[in-house]
């Protein structure tokens, strides 16, 4: 099965990379293999389905047994994986339990690996898994693919888990390193599996596109000494073109289905960024429009904050400042370091250096990632002279 061989490749890669050094483009290597195998499998399944139909038409009795059984075996395995995904991501489980179970049962990551990735003691994670399994058993969480009418809401839960896994790996919430490869690779792999099991689901495609496009920047986000590099300062030649091309193609497929949603919109925003050869050529006006649409369906203060960044780029910091002040006053972002770092950046661009320095200080105090905290500290220091 495709997933098993990719899983094997991934697990053996996890074991070998530290000693042998990273292959030139590890993500692409696994992705290409996975994609080829997924396409092969899909082709085989479709061909098989057509052959079974053709045979059934000619000889309704004789061949249905054999062809039908093979089809059923294939479907049964896919059904099993789908059931597993939806059970692991059941809303009745706490979100960290969903994430841990998904990585353990679908990701094939071992408990110590998951614990390491989330910077948790192994015992804590083991207990979390035991409690989750107990909840499934005691509360009677069924092992089923949700019925059609419940699928959109339940799929949302799965996408959320995958996005959390990716984000944990991509922009770690604590510790010095920003990218934790095992998690980002795993999130992408599982997003591919989900899409091959549930083809033509716009938001599932949207999520995969988003992960691919964000992941394309992973080598550019950190300096060799571990410092954070902003999007505008990144070496775009180090962006992974394979990821970009694939991400854009997947986004196209999603768009073609004509059912926009939050993940597709976020992917579209990422697409605008990756298609700008230089930061100055970024189509910020388009990004503002995309954020307008995203805010309309997902009225979250974090989306609103990102929108003000886009507005400051499209129309200037003076226009963005009152908007971010209104956001701050609404209280939805209290204690969120990015609110302060964004406001600090606007003040800095407006030449209000003292106020910017204070704001950077507040942001640094609230940051949870060491590399980001140091970045904010440096910004603050640079304004005091």
């Amino acid at each position, binding site marked *: 099965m495709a997933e098993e061989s990719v899983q094997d490749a991934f697990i053996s890669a996890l074991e070998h990379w530290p000693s042998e050094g990273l292959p030139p483009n590890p993500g692409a290597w696994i992705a290409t293999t996975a994609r080829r195998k997924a396409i092969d499998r899909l082709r085989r399944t479709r061909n098989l389905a057509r052959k079974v139909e053709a045979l059934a038409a000619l000889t309704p009795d004789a061949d249905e047994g054999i062809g039908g059984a093979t089809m059923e075996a294939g479907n049964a395995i896919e059904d099993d994986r789908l059931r597993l995904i939806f059970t692991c991501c059941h809303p009745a489980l706490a979100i960290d339990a969903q994430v841990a179970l998904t990585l353990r049962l679908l990701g094939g990551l071992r408990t110590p690996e998951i614990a390491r990735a989330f910077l948790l003691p192994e015992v804590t994670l083991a207990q979390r898994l035991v409690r989750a399994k*107990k909840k499934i058993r005691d509360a*009677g969480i069924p*092992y089923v693919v949700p019925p059609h009418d419940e699928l959109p809401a339940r799929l949302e839960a799965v996408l959320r888990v995958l996005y959390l896994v990716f984000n944990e790996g991509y922009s770690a919430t604590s510790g010095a390193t920003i990218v934790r490869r095992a998690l980002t690779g795993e999130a992408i792999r599982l997003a591919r599996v989900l899409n091959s099991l549930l083809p033509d689901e716009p938001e599932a495609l949207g999520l995969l596109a988003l992960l691919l496009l964000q992941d394309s920047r992973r080598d550019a986000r950190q300096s060799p000494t571990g410092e954070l590099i902003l999007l505008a300062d990144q070496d775009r030649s180090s962006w992974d073109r394979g990821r970009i091309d694939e991400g854009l193609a997947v986004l196209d497929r999603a768009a073609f289905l004509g059912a926009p949603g939050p993940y597709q919109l976020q992917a579209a925003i990422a697409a605008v960024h990756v298609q700008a050869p230089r930061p100055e050529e970024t189509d910020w006006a388009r990004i503002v429009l995309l954020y307008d649409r995203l805010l309309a369906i997902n009225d979250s203060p974090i989306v609103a904050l990102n929108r003000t960044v886009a507005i400051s780029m499209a129309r200037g910091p003076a226009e963005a400042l009152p908007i971010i002040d209104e956001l701050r006053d609404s209280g939805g972002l209290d204690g969120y370091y990015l609110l302060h770092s964004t406001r600090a950046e606007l003040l800095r661009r407006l030449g209000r250096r003292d106020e910017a320095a204070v704001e950077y200080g507040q942001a640094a105090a609230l940051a949870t990632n060491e590399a980001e905290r140091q970045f904010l500290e440096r910004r603050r220091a640079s304004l005091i002279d």
Partner: protein
Amino acid sequence: MRYALLIYVQPWETTPEQDNQVMEAYNAFGREAMAADVMRGGEALNEAKTATSVRVRDGKTLVTDGPFAETKEEFGGFYLIEAANLDEAIKWAAKIPGATRGTVEVRPVADMASAPDETNQAPAGIAAG
């Protein structure tokens, strides 16, 4: 499996007409649950301010005025239902009128006597500890 559906709602000022509407909504739920043969019992409770709390410590019975916990949302009543699994129980919980204003807690009834249900059980890898 049997589930207790525990209804927590913040009391609010009602007109007699609204009271009737709420009662009718609960009656409708009751009828639907009976027709589907899932209803196994239930009661509406008087308001929390009519409650008395009892504790026995060191052989002494301590009685105090009020519910176990002073919360904004009060425990107002419960149903006992029979459902194949949690998803079914959730579907019924969502139909309870109190769910739109407050919270319905879905708790499996501890089943001491019977053997585990074989149907729709997750594979051993999930359910086993």
